[in-house]
């Protein structure tokens, strides 16, 4: 393993003694008796008060780095080389007692899943107080300090929250509690591991705002791990891009994201739909190949197998640490940083964009007064309320919304997995179909298929790919025997699956390949409509790009219509022709993609759009939402959004629910505020 670590270059520009300094760190996991390298010489440092972000796709080692920074590794993991210094002291040489004291007084962590991170059997107060008694305070003092700590993380009613159990708090509140505990010791080092993954967009924005404010109040060094590049850009001074257990590029966040100097960083950024790019403009870039397995032998450049500009030099020699610029605050681990500009952008791929059904373009799907009420004991929970939708041939309708918005229920109602309440109707090609899948004709079933969020769950793991596809072809098209086999092979070829893949089981495929199989299955019977439920949210961005490109291509060829459910505004902007925004089971706004992104908007859409952490670094005025998403079981009166609406009109909004009103052709919203006023209120600050 090479030792040419960028310790000097990576040091921070303020020339302070770093709060955290990781030097040539090597970590292995022992799998079946064999040591496999996970970190291959990671070096970076973080100054007091500075925030440093680590980005990279799953398996690159960023989480391992975060945990190793606090010397917390799974039982089969061990540090085999290098040093971790916090405040000048070397963690790798500490005894267990010293480590415990270190964790109590100098370092803290915030975790990915706050609902699991808190002890379910202890009241929240007790858990926070424990963080203070640990520092030597008596119970009464600790209790007072706990109240203060909760106020600091903007919890309005600390004593009430302290009396609660974790499960009685929302995800956002739980994460605030975890943050309050983390700040108890006024740490030198604060590690945040995917702190907002799994939280709703508006809640995520709140938590990130909070972290931003708290950072200014303390001089802790922050190490932030996130797969979302926008979060890193919004929060971190500097960023390190990790690949296969190494930091391949490092520098100030804005510079790295605007002007990447490593081929991997370039690939990562180009696979994101950025700067409002649409599918009509160009395809997304993808990174060919796959991440090397942990423990693979990588004697030269770790990225060489997937690099578009790799040369013989790259295949034989470890790249040096190349400074970028002359400030000494940036470097890249590449032989050819000057060739970066030569990496080609992908060409235009899709030429169609279909708008709402019209006379020339008939609708394929129509929902009229569709509602779905779940009955639970004696409660009735309206998950979907009076939804009106139509979908043109070859159109993509994006559905966005947070948890409880009813977007998944909408998908199930369309497909008949959950039969919609009587009184509404789902029509296919102008003909009303049965509410439940069981009652629908074979042709109805063939016409409407679904692509699921998680391919691991969507594919039967004990069936081979061939079995999965053959069964769907036979069931949906009535083609049997050899003809069916032939069709399966055509289908596979079309989805860029090789014949070899057909005889594998799903677990032998990568996430991206699994999702291709799931897509092939949905397309087995040439469907008219495919409902895509977050089809890329479980995938890494470079894989996501390939899947989005594939979906766009299939649509162009087969004129399939998509109902595309997602929480990712970038993805929906790229792929959708129209967007519907849902909140508490109602469509609050619907319109062509450009109209929805340019405004005027429903105040909820406005808040949702402003909550996106942008990798482009656009300055947006955050619209802060008060309170939490109400339970669908108990929706507010009048406009269901009024309790959280920053633009609420007292005396009106809580009384009557506004109708879905057209503000421009095809663009409608449920809001009492007149359009002209909304336009005025939402005028974008000039750039």
């Amino acid at each position: 393993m090479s030792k040419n670590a960028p310790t000097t270059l990576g040091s921070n520009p303020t020339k302070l003694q770093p709060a955290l300094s990781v030097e040539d760190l090597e970590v292995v996991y022992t799998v079946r008796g064999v040591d496999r390298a996970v970190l291959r010489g990671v070096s970076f440092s973080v100054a007091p008060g500075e925030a440093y972000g680590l980005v990279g796709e799953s398996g690159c080692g960023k989480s391992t780095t975060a945990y190793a920074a606090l010397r917390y590794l799974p039982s089969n993991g061990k540090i085999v080389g290098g040093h971790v210094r916090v405040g000048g002291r070397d963690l790798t040489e500490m005894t267990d007692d010293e480590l415990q004291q270190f964790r109590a007084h100098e370092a803290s962590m915030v975790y990915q899943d706050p609902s699991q991170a808190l002890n379910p059997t202890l009241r929240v107060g007790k858990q926070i107080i424990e963080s203070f008694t640990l520092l030597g305070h008596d119970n009464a003092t600790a209790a007072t300090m706990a109240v203060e700590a909760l106020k600091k993380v903007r919890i309005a009613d600390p004593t009430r929250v302290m009396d609660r159990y974790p499960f009685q708090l929302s995800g956002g509140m739980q994460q605030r509690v975890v943050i309050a505990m983390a700040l108890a010791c006024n740490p030198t080092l604060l590690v945040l591991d995917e702190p907002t993954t799994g939280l709703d967009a508006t809640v995520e924005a709140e938590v990130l705002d909070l972290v931003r404010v708290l950072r200014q109040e303390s001089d802790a060094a922050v190490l932030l791990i996130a797969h979302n590049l926008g979060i890193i850009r919004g929060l971190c001074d500097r960023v390190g891009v990790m690949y296969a257990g190494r930091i391949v590029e490092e520098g100030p966040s804005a510079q790295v994201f605007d002007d990447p100097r490593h081929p991997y960083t370039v690939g990562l950024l180009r696979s994101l739909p950025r700067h409002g790019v649409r599918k009509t403009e160009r395809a997304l870039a993808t990174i060919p190949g796959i991440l090397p397995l942990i423990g693979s032998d990588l004697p030269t450049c770790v990225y060489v197998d997937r690099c578009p500009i790799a040369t013989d030099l790259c295949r034989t020699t470890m790249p040096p640490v190349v400074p970028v610029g002359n400030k000494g605050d940036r470097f890249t681990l590449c032989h050819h940083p000057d060739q970066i500009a030569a990496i080609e952008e992908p060409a235009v791929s899709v030429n169609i964009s279909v708008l709402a059904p019209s006379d020339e373009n008939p609708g394929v799907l129509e929902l009229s007064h569709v509602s779905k009420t779940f009955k639970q004991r004696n409660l009735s929970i309206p998950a979907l309320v009076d939804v009106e939708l139509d979908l043109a041939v070859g159109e993509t309708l994006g559905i966005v919304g947070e948890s409880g918005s009813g977007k998944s229920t909408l998908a199930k109602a369309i497909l008949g997995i959950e039969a919609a309440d009587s009184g509404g109707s789902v029509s296919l090609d102008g003909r009303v179909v049965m509410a439940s899948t069981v009652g629908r004709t074979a042709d109805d079933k063939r016409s409407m298929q679904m692509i699921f969020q998680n391919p691991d769950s969507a594919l039967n793991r004990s069936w081979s790919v061939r079995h999965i596809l053959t069964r769907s072809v036979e069931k949906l098209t009535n083609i049997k025997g050899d003809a069916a086999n032939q069709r399966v092979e055509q289908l596979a070829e079309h989805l860029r699956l090789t014949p070899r893949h057909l005889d594998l089981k799903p677990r032998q495929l990568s996430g991206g390949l699994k999702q291709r199989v799931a897509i092939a299955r949905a397309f087995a019977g040439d469907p008219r409509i495919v409902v895509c439920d977050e089809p890329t949210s479980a995938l890494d961005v470079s894989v996501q790009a390939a899947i989005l490109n594939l979906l766009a291509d299939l649509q162009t060829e087969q004129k399939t219509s998509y109902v595309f459910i997602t929480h990712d505004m970038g993805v929906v902007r790229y792929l959708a022709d129209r967007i519907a925004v849902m909140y508490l089971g109602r469509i609050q706004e619907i319109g062509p993609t450009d109209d929805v992104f340019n405004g005027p908007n429903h105040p909820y859409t406005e808040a949702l759009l402003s909550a996106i952490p942008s990798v482009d670094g656009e300055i947006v005025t955050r619209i802060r939402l008060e309170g939490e998403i109400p339970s669908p079981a108990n929706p507010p009166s009048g406009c269901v959004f009024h309790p959280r609406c920053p633009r609420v009109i007292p005396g009106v909004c809580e009384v009557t629910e506004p109708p879905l009103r057209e503000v421009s052709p095809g663009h409608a919203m449920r809001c009492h505020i007149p359009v002209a006023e909304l336009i005025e209120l939402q005028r974008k600050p000039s750039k």
Partner: protein
Amino acid sequence: MKRFILKRVASMVVTLWLLSTIVFMVVNVLPGNVARKVLGGQALEEDVIRLNARLGTDKPLLEQYWTSIRRIFTLSFGDSYKSQVPVSDIIFPALGRSAKLALLAFIITIPLSIAAGIYAARRQDKPIDRAIVTVGLSTSAIPEFVTATVLLVVFAVKLNLGKVYANPPDGVGLFGQLEYLLLPALAMSIAYFGYIARMTRAGVIGALHADFTRTAVMKGLSQGQVMRRHVLRNAMAPTIVVISTSVGYLIGGIVGVEKVFNYAGLGQTMLDAVNKSDIPVLQGAVLLVGIIYMVSTLLADLFIAYLNPRVRLEKSR
């Protein structure tokens, strides 16, 4: 909470009814003349008729069924076919003796096995853990009567420690009784130990790997504090479930052990009843065991609800 208890009690009543129906069906599956079976082939026909009338076994099956259902809820199971004393006079004293034995086994096993389970969990996959797991697995796989026999041979017969019969003579004090009960209790404990230790270990390992334990470690708590305040509190629930449902396990084992040591407990009583076709005694004893089992699981559920705020608070809504 009240709602939760009511629901549980209601479901217990349904289960009891099902249980008594099953028992009734099993014992009545073969049509036959009960009194003839009891009195034997040589008995006079008029004696047989008289006994059937007294026992109520000449009534239509449906009426007998109704009687047997009524009996569980009143805990009066009629008279023994054999000795013709009320069944409750036979089974309750027997239950008392069995309870003494089971309690002793319980007292010996619970602290030891829980300690061993926690100890093994903290040293997961180390040799001592493998040893505890393998020994626990082996001892809990051996039928109790086998363990009892081996203990009897080794201690009572060869080493002259402990008694061959578990029934203490009348007038023996509490400590004297202990001497008689120690070997049979030990036989039950050996099987029981492995079971509880393994379950405790699994519960503790689950809690040790939970995210909240990671939070506690990262807070900077000492190992002991992490165990006491966070791990054990959460590992308790599965262990309590196991202990409470193991009442059935204990009773199952007690039959063999009581036979080996000739102890006049509920197990022996049931065996006697089986051999003598004394259906009312058998029915009474079986239902009693069922009731004890169900009450103990109910108590366990309540205790778990008390420990787990989620169950406690959600069920009360």
